[in-house]
């Protein structure tokens, strides 16, 4: 699979403070890349470096197969739509006038503009001034402005920020449609739930470092879920296992963490049977992506 974005040890420092450190970003073409991390973890800074809005202190970024720097940026930016921090838009102008500015700047024909406006379902709001828009409408106009150039890559920084659940669902659905149409989408969020179901590849950032990058399945397997055991004498079992493993009793179920492979599971069961405790249930805990995410970011020293 070819990569539409690849960075090598991308680093941004302000004085001694590293905001982004040694980032090796890998975004496959055609995916929805969920870029996750708590506020202040360096997501916006990274995205700005991918657009050459700011220059990296060291390392480099390759976008659309070419190095992204001040010499190449204007050529590459014609194929990249972006929405950084808050949505753009001149407040004293109408939605239509804002789109006309984009049309002039990018030398687009009317069909491109119509298509972008219809894609975000804003065609009935375009004669209102942007200052009268709700936040959701501003976000959608901002996405339309990014889409009008029919980008190969779309970089959206927290596009669901401040939206109500219906608005969030609408953006999710839009991202899915765009990806189906062949656009690679990089979307950041500090809330996993917002892009959990949309993203096909995830990158998790904590304090400027990538602590995980891969598919959803890989993320699940990166953090082993707890082992849950039901047995005939939970209290005695807890005593027997407490020394060797961290073992908690929840209701009448034993919860063991850090039991990774099948052999270790068999060892635990054998130990209980050796103590004449009847084992009638051994299973893995149901794990949400949220808890994995929390575990990873906490491990990264949040």
């Amino acid at each position: 699979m070819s990569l539409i974005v690849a960075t090598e040890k991308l680093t941004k420092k302000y004085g001694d403070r590293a905001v982004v450190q040694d980032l090796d970003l890998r975004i496959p073409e055609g995916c929805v890349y969920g870029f996750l991390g708590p506020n202040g973890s360096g997501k916006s800074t990274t995205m700005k470096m991918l657009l050459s809005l700011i220059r990296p202190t060291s390392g480099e970024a390759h976008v659309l197969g070419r190095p992204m720097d001040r010499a190449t940026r204007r050529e590459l930016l014609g194929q990249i739509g972006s929405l950084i921090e808050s949505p753009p838009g001149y407040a004293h102008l109408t939605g239509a006038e804002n789109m006309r500015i984009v049309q002039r700047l990018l030398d687009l024909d009317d069909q491109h503009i119509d298509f972008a406006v219809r894609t975000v379902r804003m065609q009935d709001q375009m004669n209102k001034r942007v200052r009268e828009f709700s936040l959701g409408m501003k976000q959608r106009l901002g996405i339309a402005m990014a889409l009008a150039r029919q980008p190969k890559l779309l970089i959206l920084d927290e596009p669901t920020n401040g939206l109500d659940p219906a608005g969030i669902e609408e953006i999710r659905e839009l991202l899915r449609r765009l990806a189906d149409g062949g656009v690679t989408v990089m979307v950041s969020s500090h809330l996993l739930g917002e892009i959990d179901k949309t993203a096909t590849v995830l990158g998790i950032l904590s304090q400027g470092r990538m602590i995980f990058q891969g598919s959803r399945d890989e993320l699940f397997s990166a953090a082993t879920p707890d082992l849950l055991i039901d047995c005939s004498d939970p209290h005695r079992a807890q005593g027997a296992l407490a020394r060797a493993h961290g073992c908690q009793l929840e209701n009448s179920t034993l919860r063991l963490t850090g039991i990774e492979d099948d052999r270790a599971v068999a060892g635990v069961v054998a130990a209980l049977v050796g103590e004449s405790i009847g084992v009638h249930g051994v299973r893995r805990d149901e794990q949400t992506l949220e808890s994995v995410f929390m575990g990873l970011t906490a491990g990264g020293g949040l």
Partner: protein
Amino acid sequence: MNVFFAELIKLKRSLSWAVVILLPIILVASGSIMTFIDGRGLEDGWNTLWMRSMVFYGLFPLAVGIAILASLIWRAEHRGSNWNALMAGPTSSLRIVLAKAAVIAVLAVIMQGIALATVLVLGKVVFGLPGWLPPQYLAVSVVVVIACIPVAVLQSWLSMQMRSFAAPIAVAFLGAGFSAFLLVVGLDAAIFVSPYAAVSRATQLGTATFADTGDITLAVLAMIAVASLLLSAVLAAANTLVLERSDART
């Protein structure tokens, strides 16, 4: 040209129109209205009227007016993420710099047109002068317009860089004041260094005030025009280089 047309769309419903129309009318009129109030006559007719209105207007109101226009034009970019959006597009830094300066210069041209019209209305309607404004003042107006260009380029740069509304206007006010001082002491060469001096000097043409001899010669017209165009080119090139190398601040 497309970038320039995009800039023109941004002028819709802009406050800058109020500045373009009201500032020259009020300040050109206030320069000569004292004549009317204290009963002094216009000894030399149109020449005296031009001197009293235009020289005052050119000392600092014109530069400050262009500074206000630049701040208004840039205010829209500094709000929200508009500037990021513009810089994350394919438009080159040079074209952005030129389009911004051009739109401010065009407003300055319209402002000069209104200033000229105000002088004409004052002369005919308020003072009832015979005849019309001598044609050499039309040539002077063309040079004033040319001298507005480097001021537009510089103020656009200051407003881009400072991200403040008032600070670039204060710079224009101080710059115009200092430049007026240089012209008073006869340092005519200041027009090659200070855009404010160039525009002030242009408004003094033919009035025998400050560094002016009173004669409008082709040589002096050409000197101011050349100085203005040189300053504009140097400032625009420097602005482009700085913009190309600087990082987004928000």
